């Protein structure tokens, strides 16, 4: 049976917002009876891009763009909260808010811990992404956001079809759920969700040169990662969990080793670390 889902590869997203604009284009001014009423021109983000700025000047800085839309959960809180069928799951797994039945039901917004349900003041209804169900039913292969994505960061397909790209990515274990702790069997999963990094720049203090090939060990007490600085003296270890303490040891022959304790509340930018001669 068809079970629609999406895989979002954050490592390929350049923040172009084509998905967001395509969504506005599809739904602003357009009613699709039984599927959705028109989206307001402003203030609703059926696909919203969370921009997380990472790092600190001068090094390293970047942005992770995480598009968030309805996760079309198989065990959706919103469906459970909608006692009178205002929100339902179709046979193909798409979760729909009935634009008629949901009138005035503002409380349904807070049933979703992902906060992807938006209130339409004018129409007095809660609204969200439908995976463009009206288009899929008309024979389209993918929703508007996926069609408009220039880098294939958004991938859409049938999770029950083992040959679909999304099913393969899920089967290969390359994906993760944004909030697995919600236990809602989400059908949107992600590749490359931003975690925490520890980064710094090592300088030979005596010569003021970038310290290339310096050994950096990063340890959480049990496991240890060893890396080398690059030609700018930079090192970076990404993909670490948040709120964890690490010991960073920096050593190079002929120089005094240095040890730091860091905590991954946020990405850790250690700045310039000057090594001194033994």
């Amino acid at each position: 049976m068809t079970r629609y889902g999406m895989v979002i590869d954050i490592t390929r997203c350049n923040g172009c917002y084509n998905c967001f604009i395509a969504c506005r284009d599809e739904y602003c001014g357009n009613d699709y009876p039984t599927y959705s009423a028109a989206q307001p021109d402003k203030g609703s983000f059926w696909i919203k891009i969370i921009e997380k700025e990472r790092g600190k000047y001068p090094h390293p800085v970047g942005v992770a763009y995480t598009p968030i839309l309805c996760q079309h959960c198989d065990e959706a809180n919103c469906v459970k909260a909608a006692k009178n069928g205002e929100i339902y799951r179709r046979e193909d797994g798409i979760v729909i808010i009935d634009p008629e039945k949901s009138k005035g039901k503002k409380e349904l917004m807070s049933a979703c811990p992902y906060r992807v349900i938006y209130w339409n003041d004018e129409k007095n209804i809660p609204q969200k992404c439908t995976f463009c169900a009206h288009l899929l039913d008309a024979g389209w292969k993918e929703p508007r956001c996926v069609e408009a994505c220039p880098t294939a960061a958004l991938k859409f397909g049938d999770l029950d079809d083992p040959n679909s790209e999304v099913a393969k990515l899920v089967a290969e274990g390359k994906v993760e759920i944004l909030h697995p702790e919600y236990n809602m069997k989400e059908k949107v999963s992600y590749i490359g969700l931003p975690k925490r990094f520890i980064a710094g720049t090592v300088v030979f203090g005596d010569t003021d040169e970038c310290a290339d090939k310096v050994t950096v060990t990063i340890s959480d007490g049990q496991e240890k990662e060893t890396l080398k600085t690059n030609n700018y003296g930079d090192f970076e270890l990404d993909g670490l969990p948040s709120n964890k303490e690490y010991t960073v040891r920096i050593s190079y022959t002929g120089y005094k080793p240095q040890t730091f304790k860091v905590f991954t509340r946020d990405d850790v930018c250690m700045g310039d670390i000057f090594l001194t001669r033994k």
Partner: protein
Amino acid sequence: MSEKVFINCTGGGPIRVHVKNGKITRVRPLVFDENDAPPWTIEAGGQKFTPPRKACVASFALTEKERVYSKDRILYPLKRVDFDQNGERHPENRGKSGYERISWDEAINIVSGEMKRIRSAYGPEAIVSRGSSHHNWGNVGYRSSTWARFFNLIGFTDILDNPDSWEGWHWGAPHAYGFFWRLGNPEQYDLLEDALKNTEMVIYWSNDPDSTHGIYGGNESALWRIWMRDLGIKQVFLDPYCNYTAAIHSEKWIAYRPGTETALAMAIAYVWLTEDTYDKQYIETHSLGFDEFKSYILGKEDGVAKTPEWAAEICDVPARNIIALAREWASKRTMLSSGTKGGEGGACRQAYATEWARMMVFLAAMQGMGKPGSNIWGTTLGPPFNATLDFPGYAQGGINRLAKKPAVNPVKQRIYRLLLPEAILNPPIKWMGDGFCGNSIEQQFNKYVYPLPGCSEVKMFYRYGGAFIATMTETNRWVRMYQSPKLEFVVNQDCWWCTETKFADIILPACTNLERNDISEWASAGGYSVHGAGACNHRVIVYQQKCVEPVGESKSDYQIFCELAERLGVKEEFTEGNTEEDWIKIMFDSSDLPKYISFEEFKKKGYYIVPQLENYKPTPSLRWFYEGRECDTPDLGNAKRNTEKGKELGTYSGKLEFVSQSLLKHTPDDDERPPLVHYIPSWEGHQSDLAKKYPLQLISPHPRYSFHTQHDSHVPWLSDIPGHRIWKDGYDYQVVRIHPTDAATRGIQNNDIVKLYNDRGAVLLIAQISERIRPGVVHSCEGSAKYDPLEPGKAGSIDRGGCINVLTPSRMLSKNVPGMAPNSCLVEVSKWEV
């Protein structure tokens, strides 16, 4: 009524437009079908790279529905309420007064009547007119075509455009490597394949290709940079701002102070010279004047060696980083990506930017520019490209070129765009240089004076499409100009209310290119940017199908000019009996397209994908020069191609000129663009006296989510993109980015409304506190579609629309270089409290 689907094209790519009951319901990127020509594949690093079977358009291309029905559309002909062509004109109220609706008949009567009056009283030169770039798309109905034919026919004072996006390259680089026929940009053929196969590192220097996408290429090349990452090609960014491309690709970000790029570049050259890590043989055989250059870098001319330590002080980048970068560059096959088409970038829009552009050429040259994997490449052009099918770009003369009798402007008088306010307010004015100098290097030295002896000053301004306010520098000059009684009459013909529409006496509503038929090729301007369609993975030639009836009472530009031509008694000459549809067919027939597809089929389907050549043989740019062969690229503008000078560059000597022979000949004593490249501290930079009063440097790049003034606030959807505008206290404020330390010392918090100001004016913006901007620099994009002064019509009023050019200086790059320098701009910022 059932749904109909039309094909059209925009400045951000081709689109499929769905229409129901005469209204646009959706706008999709063009997705190709199985009958369209197959794509290319590049094999590199054991992988195969093939582009998707669709147009990867810009986000703003998908806003066309909202843009067509924008609240900013001009729906009817309008007359300023206190303008009376037979009585009081009240020019002082331009920008202040409201408008009343008038009929088309009355509007055309007034405009044609004023044109007749002014022409007979002062001569045709008393009318000045110009359009702006990019407000529409199409080869027939757009400015280089219909507008140009009309005004050339009746005669007018034309405005010479400055090359606003690539000033330093235009005025500097041709003196180093030629390519004047590309207005200073290098050829870019087949550099994608070359990079994927041979390049080890790309250095983006003041370049944000994900935002500027080869001008019209939308998101087509975004994938190329992902491919490079997947192949392990290192991507390094030099920019005061961790720009949008850097934000996802940067493996190293080096953030120098604006205005110090030339010093940084010279320090890199110093490392190569002293460590002997440049291509000596290439320099010997391919260049001229290297010894003088070497002497200057080593400090023998002025006693100042251009060492990394010297540059570190100026640029605020540690010397060790400059050394590490220089060494890595010398050790790796490197693409220097110094602007979206190779040569652009914010660094070229500031004081003495000719020197930076020339240094970019010289650094590339020192590493053997043209050898496999080593070149100047913007990363937005140069996929496999079938150049054998000829189809005109929009800037190639349009209908006027195809007319039986092309119209030639009889008026010799010109005004330089950046000097238009001064020309009106304080004539006479003088300048040197033709604006776009694409026919010869000598054009840069042509001397102009306005008014031309024997010519009248201009009395009427016919403004067509788009805006100079918010794209050109020092806005308040333009406000004063518009309010001058010397401009007896001002017309504005546009689709939208833009930044300067409300300075007109009569406003004529034009329809967009979704409301009429036209013909074009995606991303193709032609002429000076020949084969610009190489910004796209496929060549897409479009029959732009009219999707809906013109909104309100708007009319096509061709129709409007036909009506004016009729009143002026030149309709037959203007049209030669042709309708717009006739011109489209004439344009089609003038191209190679009939060899591939019939007009009927083309018109019905709406587009044609140019097939790739079988057995395609890449001819990478400048490989011929590197190897000492004759030019083998299809670079049509290169006049030495296929001649006995075919092995030469377009410089006077045919070589790379470290000492420019053209500058030596024409301006040998110019110490601000000297024959030998020099580092000259900015006239408005961090070391200026003015920095004591205004300690922050403002950079105002092209916007990521709009095309100059052409989308932005016309399209409220874009205002919901938090990097573009942010809604606060009932208003969409444009974003200004400030480093946390600069914000903290001024008590500014994220999302505070702030006043950015200097002696030239003040703009209200919303603060986004960001680590992406280096300390001492603030960042806010040019191109606001809104100029919204708190006191309308008052020069010097605080603007809250986001018109950042209120702040930028009107001073030119240097004394003989008439380019604009908005990125040489000192400001202060404070929290705004109403």
